């Protein structure tokens, strides 16, 4: 069938089940926007292109679909970069489509030309600059497969305007053949047997669950292995929600902001099974020494992660779910003495900080929200103290979802991500945990929320500062506070009300339950502004 390039793009998006895309138009991408009118795909107009990628990321993380975002050439495309890099670090399947100047003008620095494939090469799983319209359908199809298979990641396709307008003979049949790309891996039985022998012999086995547990859908098998063979589990930030936080063998998050129980277990265990995680520098409290004295088994879909951050004795390359299932079949029930400490329950955690008058304790707010919210509520966070409070003080169930920027730590991620979460899960509660600094990095997306009539519960921890950096300056720079004060914050309640959103301010412990209930029962977007002391510490132990 003859059609133009733009129509072919839309057709393939539909073929891959795309029902919503996040984007921002401009001249170069206009042929695509014109075709979009004829499609049932819903377009969500964000207020800044970075928000389109974050929204696509929130959407992808909570729907098992590829997130799709669109921008125009030049500044539209470059505005995507932080979003793409954020998705890359957290292995989120995203297809980003950018318009480009006419192919005949490429390289001539014409109006709104930017080398976006060059600029994003370090942050993309793969990218394309399309120079031949006949290849366009194949490329779009490939992009979806690349983004969603193997270790997922963002794929960018840069399409010159003449290619979008050019005619292509569309054949609805695709053969995926990239000789250098494989995404189905045979399990190495020998190594799996070796790994199981090591675990069966272990006196102190421990599992570290990484983000791959969530993306491969391995929560259940992880729980079965842990429960039936009495193996405790700790998780990285990207895997929060891999097990119920109240489950007794769940030792909580590991790393510099993790629990004492988890970090002790990591240093004391004799066999360590790292499942679907790269064990980044934030997760290992002591990189070299700790890991050398134990048998480390590493499951990862990306062979480049094996041995990159920690030395590995047995590397199991492939899909975490398949491998965990294979391991499950070969494990033996072994009687072991209890060797690890239990994690302190959240209600017993204490920051040893006296909350000043007019402020609330983030812990009181978050525990209240966790207990009153739906069991399948989706949480998003920003970066900073708010992120760590959310990670440590919200007890999640496996039916919940926790959406956060881990690898990149991108402020301004949470609010647009919550847009994507809500768009993909209209029937679920979406609760955005915000910091006053981060919120103001993506504040414009309130316009998107308003226009789409979304119902997002926004919990703002307003400490009038870039709290996490301020805390660093308290501890490491002798309280020389430099560039961390946000004393001239707007009146957020008034600001939100100009978007038509309800809201209330929490300044007193007594009102927490009532206000949280009010927020959760309200129909529509609601701001719960929690006034927090600028000296309130991050860590509760």
């Amino acid at each position, binding site marked *: 069938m003859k059609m133009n390039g733009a129509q072919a793009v839309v057709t393939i998006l539909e073929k891959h089940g795309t029902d919503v895309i996040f984007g921002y138009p401009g001249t170069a991408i206009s042929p695509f926007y014109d075709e979009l009118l004829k499609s049932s795909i819903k377009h969500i107009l964000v207020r800044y292109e970075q928000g389109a990628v974050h929204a696509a990321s929130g959407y992808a993380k909570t729907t098992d679909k590829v997130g799709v975002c669109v921008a125009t050439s030049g500044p539209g495309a470059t505005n995507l970069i932080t979003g793409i890099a954020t998705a890359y670090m957290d292995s989120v399947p995203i297809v980003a489509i950018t318009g480009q100047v006419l192919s005949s003008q490429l390289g001539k620095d014409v109006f709104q030309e930017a080398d976006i494939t060059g600029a994003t090469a370090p942050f993309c799983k793969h990218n394309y600059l399309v120079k031949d319209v006949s290849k366009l359908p194949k490329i779009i199809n490939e992009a979806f497969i690349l983004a969603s298979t193997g270790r997922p990641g963002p794929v960018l396709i840069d399409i010159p305007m003449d290619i979008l307008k050019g005619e292509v003979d569309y054949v609805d049949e695709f053969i995926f053949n990239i000789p250098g790309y494989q995404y189905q891996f045979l399990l190495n039985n020998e190594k799996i047997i070796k790994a199981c022998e090591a675990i069966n012999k272990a006196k102190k086995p421990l599992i570290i669950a990484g983000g791959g547990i969530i993306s491969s859908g391995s929560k259940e098998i992880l729980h079965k292995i842990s429960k039936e063979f009495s193996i405790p589990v700790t998780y990285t930030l990207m895997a929060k929600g891999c097990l119920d936080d109240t489950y007794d063998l769940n030792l909580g998050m590991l790393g510099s902001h993790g629990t004492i129980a988890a970090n002790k277990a990591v240093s004391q265990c004799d066999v360590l099974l790292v499942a679907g995680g790269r064990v980044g520098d934030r997760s290992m409290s002591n990189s070299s020494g700790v890991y050398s004295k134990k048998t480390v088994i590493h499951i990862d879909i990306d*062979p*480049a992660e094996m041995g990159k951050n920690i030395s590995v004795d047995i590397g199991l390359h492939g899909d975490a779910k398949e491998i965990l299932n294979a391991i499950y079949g070969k494990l033996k029930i072994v009687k072991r003495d209890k060797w690890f400490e239990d994690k302190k329950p959240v209600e017993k955690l204490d920051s040893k900080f006296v909350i000043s008058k007019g402020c609330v304790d983030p812990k009181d707010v978050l525990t209240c929200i966790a207990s009153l919210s739906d069991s399948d509520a989706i949480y998003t966070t920003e970066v900073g103290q708010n992120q760590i409070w959310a990670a440590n003080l919200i007890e999640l169930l496996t039916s919940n979802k926790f959406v956060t920027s881990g690898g990149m730590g991108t402020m301004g991620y949470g609010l647009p991500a919550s847009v994507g979460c809500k768009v993909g899960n209209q029937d679920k509660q979406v609760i955005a945990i915000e910091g006053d600094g981060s919120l103001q990095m993506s504040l414009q997306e309130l316009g998107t929320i308003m226009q789409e009539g979304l119902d997002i519960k926004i919990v703002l921890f307003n400490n009038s500062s870039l709290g996490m950096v301020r805390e660093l300056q308290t501890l490491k720079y002798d309280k020389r506070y430099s560039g961390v004060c946000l004393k001239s914050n707007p009146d957020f309640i008034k600001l939100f009300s100009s978007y038509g959103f309800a809201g209330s301010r929490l300044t007193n412990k007594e009102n927490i339950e009532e206000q949280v209930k009010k927020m959760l029962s309200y129909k529509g977007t609601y701001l719960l502004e929690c006034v927090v002391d600028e000296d309130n510490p991050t860590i509760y132990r």
Partner: protein
Amino acid sequence: MEQKHTISVLVENHAGVLSRVAGLFSRRGFNIDSLAVGETRNPEISRITIVVNGDDYTVDQVSKQLNKLVDVIKIKILVDNEFVGRELLLLKVKASAKQRAEIIQLVDIFRANIVDVSKDTITVEISADQDKIKAITGLLEPFGILETVRTGLVAIQRGVECVE
């Protein structure tokens, strides 16, 4: 231990592949000693030979990270002494009529070729391993080398083993 490693990489012959490969090296802090690219018999596939300096961890990471590039089809780390490696050197040296004979003699000893002669210069071409290239350069130095240009190393395994 830091050491030179020679890596053969087969890649799809797409625009931008070379910049992806080179970009990966600089981004991840790998030191490229040399790099040579050319088409294989299949025009859709190019072969890149890379010499990289680093320890075992580095080479392991280089090959795994290269493997992650979608355009990279195959990677082979060549084992020392089990491959033949050659670089091409073009060297322009000052040569007055008086010195010409002496230079030609040296060129003959090295089984190099003379590819250009002018009133004041001789241009020598040699394809050899790095040691030999160093040696001839050293011996021609006293005559006054005006310019040299070298390709990166290309390498092929000895015996029946093939990368392709």
